[in-house]
């Protein structure tokens, strides 16, 4: 499943870029992230808690930053995570682009997401809507972190 999302963060592009490329820092703005650990130059390990209705997922996995192109204001990353208890996981490829926007910087995110196993059967239809709520919260957290 692929989807495109956008939000405007009220800071200039350079500052947003630097913040977004500092993965442990930006992870604190991602709703549900519990731990982040640096494994290598652009590889990170972490855990994320997500709740959809009665189902609570505790996803453990890795994220790799595959490309950071500051000249084009574009970055690409790949994430893989599994929930051992429920059985299932996610695979995601994301592409981030920063552009000047009204009152700040427009953050454009393209996601290609696969939800595997049992959680997919239940969660698939609602993922897009959850993803929008997720981005709203991320954008708010990002704005607050950058304002501080």
């Amino acid at each position, binding site marked *: 499943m692929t989807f495109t999302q956008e939000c405007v963060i009220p800071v200039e592009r350079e500052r947003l870029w630097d913040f977004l490329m500092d993965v442990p820092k930006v992870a604190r703005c991602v709703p549900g992230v519990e731990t982040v650990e640096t494994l290598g130059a652009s590889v990170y390990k972490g855990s994320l808690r997500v709740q*959809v*209705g*009665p*189902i*609570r997922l505790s996803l453990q996995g890795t994220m790799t930053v595959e490309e950071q192109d500051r000249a084009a204001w574009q970055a690409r990353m790949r994430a893989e995570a599994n929930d051992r*208890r*429920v*059985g299932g996981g996610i695979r995601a490829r994301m592409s981030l682009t920063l552009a000047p926007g009204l009152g700040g910087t427009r953050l454009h995110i393209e996601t290609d997401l696969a939800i595997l196993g*049992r*959680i997919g*059967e*239940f969660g*698939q*239809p*609602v993922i*897009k*809507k*959850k993803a929008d709520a997720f981005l709203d919260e991320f954008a708010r957290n990002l704005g607050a972190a950058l304002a501080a």
Partner: protein
Amino acid sequence: MNAFEYAAPRTLDEALAVLREHGDEARVIAGGTALVTMMRQRLVRPSYLVSLREIPGLDRIEAANGGVRIGALVTHREVETSPLVRERIPVLAETFHRVASVRIRHMATVGGALAHADPNQDPPVTLIALGARVEIRGAGGRRELPVELFFRDYYESSLEPGEVVIAVVVPQFPAASGAAYVKFLPRTADDYATVAVAATVSLEADGERCRAARIALGSVGITPIRAQSAEALMAGQRFGAEMLKAARESVKSAVDPLTDHRGSAAYKREMAAVIAGRALTQAWDAARASARGTR
């Protein structure tokens, strides 16, 4: 399925105390049709199950102020076949008749289904159109909510931790009124609806103009949806193609379907309008017949 402790307290207060003690780890079980399936799939793994079955008084259908009060443990089959429900609010019996299969209807309870908050269920749609209220008990006491405010998100209700649904109260069905539940079911008879619509229409004393209408839809959003702007358009109107078209268009903007194997969001939006038109037509016909009968 994971191992769990099972408690079957004999009073509601005891059940609430157990829920308070075990917090997040405890789940209420009634008919088990939803919870056990999720436990089998290991989507939920409660370490404590609190059954409500031994608590007396939760399994009754009673007459209440011209309407009915249905206890949380009443099964879908009991609502479907209840002489009291059939006499006072036939559309409710008809709606419960449309749920899944008879085996599931014998197990699934009214309160359990509400608490499960699955947006594809049949009963909440009709309950919203009928203006029903949910009775809730928790440590803090008792409260009531209109059914349409009870659902908050995909499989999420307004129940606070430690709260339990104890009944649903359906008000008296007004005179000169009609109701209909239309379930669009293109696959199998026991499937979830692709779109479901319940409508009620109450007519003015002239038996022609709409005094009030209520329209509720299921399977076209993350919760059941009440189409209030479409309802408002109908007030004071006479039945006709123009009115129906306006209501149908308004319904399209009220829904927010999810794309799944039953169809795309765009298809379901179109079908929501079509099915709403049919439900309104049926409800209006029934209201006219009722108005003729009472004059």
